[in-house]
């Protein structure tokens, strides 16, 4: 499932980032896209989410340095990747992998998205463009 959605209105990056975080079940801010991963840590986080059957909305932060700066200002988290579930920062690659190992990742997805979250598994990509 790949669906590219360009958000082109006049909103600032900050508003667009917040909109994606609030409007998606699971968001992965990553370097590259699921089809063209540009960083080992982004690959680790993506792999853990895929194995857990998460419905992933991916955002490529490499398109513009400003996306990364605005994201870190919102989340208080300096590094990429960043994973959000239902609007809440879950962590980066280390935390998400650790949660997968302990079973907490699937548990969190079940708690926040419902028992049948697996039905929505797959990936779509949101392309952020400054308006």
């Amino acid at each position, binding site marked *: 499932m790949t669906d590219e959605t360009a958000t082109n209105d006049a909103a600032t990056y900050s508003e667009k980032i917040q909109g994606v975080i609030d409007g998606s079940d699971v968001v992965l801010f990553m370097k590259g896209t699921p089809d063209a991963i540009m960083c080992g840590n982004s690959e680790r986080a993506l792999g853990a989410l895929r194995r857990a059957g998460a419905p992933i909305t991916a955002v490529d932060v490499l398109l513009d340095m400003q996306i990364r700066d605005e994201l870190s200002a919102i989340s208080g*988290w*300096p*590094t990429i990747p960043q994973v959000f579930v239902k609007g809440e*920062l879950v962590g980066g690659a*280390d*935390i998400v992998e*650790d949660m997968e190992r302990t079973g907490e990742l699937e548990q969190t997805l079940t708690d926040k998205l419902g028992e049948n979250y697996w039905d929505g598994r797959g990936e779509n990509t949101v392309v952020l463009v400054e308006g």
Partner: protein
Amino acid sequence: MSAERLQGLLEGAFPDAAEVRVIDRGGGDHFEVRVTAPDFDGLSRIQQHKLIYAALDDPWKDGSIHELRINTKGTTQ
């Protein structure tokens, strides 16, 4: 940039730590840190990692760290 600088910053930030370990993962700017400290007791992983990022703010800002793996534990866990 050296692992010793990170070691010093972390020991300064977590003086009661049971373990502070910095592992050079190559290139002089890829590191793994392992910290076990009472500061982390009762905190979520997110909060624990944010404390590490705060302690290493200077080397982050000057570009001395390119990649960091973080492993934190409280002392009651």
